[in-house]
C-alpha cells in the first residue's frame, strides 16, 4: 500500500521536475543569448578605450619630443651656455686610500 503510494507520487513528481528543469533551461538560455549583445558592447568599449590609450601615448610622445622641449626652453628664456666649467677632484698632497 505504502509502495503504491510512493510509486503513484513518483509518477507525478518526475515529470513535474523534468518540466521545471526544461522551463528553467529555456529561461537561462534565453538570458545567456541576450548577454551576447552586452559582451559585444563591452568589446567595443574595450576597443575604444584601447584606441584612446594609444592616442594619449602619441600625445605624450609628442609633448616629450626634443624639438618641443627645445622650443619650450627657448620660450622660457633658457639659452645654451657659452662655456662649461669642470670641477674635478681636489689636488691634495696626501689622502688616505678609499
Amino acid at each position, binding site marked *: 500500500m505504502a509502495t503504491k503510494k510512493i510509486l503513484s507520487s513518483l509518477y507525478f513528481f518526475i515529470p513535474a521536475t523534468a518540466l521545471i528543469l526544461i522551463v528553467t533551461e529555456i529561461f537561462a*538560455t534565453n538570458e*545567456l*543569448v*541576450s*548577454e*551576447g*549583445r552586452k*559582451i*559585444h558592447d563591452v568589446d567595443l568599449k574595450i*576597443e575604444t578605450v584601447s*584606441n584612446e590609450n*594609444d*592616442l594619449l*601615448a*602619441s600625445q605624450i*610622445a*609628442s609633448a*616629450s*619630443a*626634443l*624639438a618641443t622641449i627645445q622650443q619650450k626652453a627657448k620660450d622660457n628664456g633658457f639659452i645654451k651656455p657659452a662655456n*662649461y666649467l*669642470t670641477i*674635478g677632484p681636489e689636488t691634495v698632497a696626501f689622502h688616505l686610500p678609499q
Partner: protein
Amino acid sequence: MRRIWIVFFILVSVYLGILIRLFYWQVIESDRLRVEAAKQYALTLTLPASRGAITDTSGTSLVMSQPASLVYASPAIIKDPITFVDKVASVLPVDSKDLLGSLGQKGRVWVPVAHKVNNEVSEKLKALRLDGLGFENDSLRYYPEGSMAAQLLGFVGSDENGNDKGYFGLEGFYDRELHGKDGVIAIEKDVRGAPIVIGDTKRIEPEHGSTIRLWLDRTVQYDAEQRLREGIEKYGAKEGTVTIMDPKTGGILAMASYPSYDPSQFTQFPKDVYKNPIVASSYEPGSTFKVLVMSTALDHKLVTPDTVIDESGPAQVGEYSIRTWNNQYHGNITTTKVLEYSSNVGMVSVSKLLGKDLQLSGIHAFGIGKETGIDLEEESSPELRSDNDWKPIDLATASFGQGIAVTPIQMVRAVGALANDGKLMEPHVARQIIDQKGRVIDIKPKQLRQVISPATSHIITEMMIAAVDNGEAKWAKPRGYRIAGKTGTAQIPVAGHYDDKKTIASFVGFAPADDPKFVMLVTLQEPTSSPWGSETAAPLFFNIAKDLFVYYGIAPQ
C-alpha cells in the same frame, strides 16, 4: 485503368522531379549554400595586429602606431552623391571627380574613400553625419620626433595587396618582426547581429608586432642633425653625413644625413632621398684612409712612429708623379709627421714598404669592399677591383685614399677597430627586440676579427692624436681633450678624371683617445667656403665632440 496509369506516371514524374531538384540543392549546390548560410549566422571579425614601435636606447619612441580610420562609402545608401562628395571633399583631400565616378559605378557596394585617416579628421567626418559614410579600424605610423633619423628608420608603405610593408632602413630590415599577425574571431550571431554566447566561437588572438629598441641615443642624434644642418649652411656644402658609433659594441649612436625627408609624408619627397647615404652611397675617403694603411704597416713592423721617410720632393710611381696636397716638402720626416702633414708622398713610401700583398690584405682585413652587415635594408658596398688588377699606381693612390671607394659606415667601422684594441666590430642599429609578451631578445655585439694587435692600435692612436694636435685642424680642437683623428680632402671623380674644384671634405676620429666613448665620421660634399677637410669637416667634428663631452660628462684632462 488507363487513367489510373496516367495519374500514376504523373505522380512518379513529379516525385522524380522533386528528387532531382533535392539532389541539385543538397549535393551539387550544398557547398555554396553552406557558405551562404554561414554568412547569415556566422560573424567573422578581424582582430588587427598593431605594428611594433621603434624606440631609442632609453625606450623613448621614435616611431609608433596610432589608431586611424579607413573611410569608405556605401553607394546603395547615398541618395545625393554630388552633395556627399562635396561634403567629404571639404574635410578630406580627395579627388572629387574620381570619387563621384566610383560611386556611380554599377554594382559597387563598397567604395574606399581614404586610408589611414587620423582621429582628428575622422571626428570631423563623423560630425557631418552623412548616410553611406562608414569607418573601419586602421592604423597610422606616427613619428613623435618628426623627421629625426628618417633615413635610419625608413617608412611604411603598402605592398601589392595593399597591406602595410616597411621600406628602407629599420622598417624594411625588421619588417617581419614589426608587422605582427592579425587575429580573427568567428562567432555565431543572432538576427540583430549580436553574438550568441553559447554558440560556436573560434578566436585567434592577434600577435602584435615587436618593439625594436636601438643603440641610438635621440639626444645625440638630435645634436648631430642640428650641427650638420648648421655646418651645411656655414660651409655651403651640397650634402653631408655624420655617423657616430660606440667602437666597443658597434652600436650606432647617431646617423645624420642631409638632405633628408619626412617619413610621415614620404610620397612628397623625391625617391632618391629615401636611401641612407651612410650605408648606400660611396665616396673616395682621401687622407682619412692613411690611418688604415699606416696601421697595417705598423702591425707588420715595417715602420715605427719614428721611422724616417724621405719627403724631399714628389714621389715617382712609374710614369706618374705624386705630390703633396700643398706642394710643400719637408725633407726627412718621421711616419708620425707623415700623418701630421698628411703627406701623400710619405704614404707612397709606406705603401712601397708594404708591397701589394700586405697592403691589400690590410684593406681586406679592415672590411673595405665588403658590406658591413649592419641591420639596415639598403646597405650596399662599392666593389674593390680584383687583387690581380691592382697596378703600382693604384696601390700608391689607395695609400692616401684616392682611387678607392668606401661607404661612410665601412670607414667608421674600420677606424672603430683602431679605437677598440684592433678588434673589428659588426655595426648594429638595433639593440633588443621585445615581443608583445615582454620577452627580450638581445642582439649581442659581434666581434668579426682582430685586424691589428692591441699594441699597434695604441701606437696608431698616439699618431692620430699628434695629427690632431699638430695638424692643419689643430686650431679647431677643444682644449684639454685627447682626440685621435685625421682630416681628409678627396677630389671627386667626374667622367674619368678628377674635378679640381669639387671635393669631399671629411674628418674621422674617436675620443676620449684613452678610453673611446665614440668614433665619428663627418663628411661634407662640395663645401664651397673651403674645399679642405681641416677647415670644414674638422671644426664640425669638434663642435659635435664638444657637445658629446658635455652630454656624457667627460671632463677635460
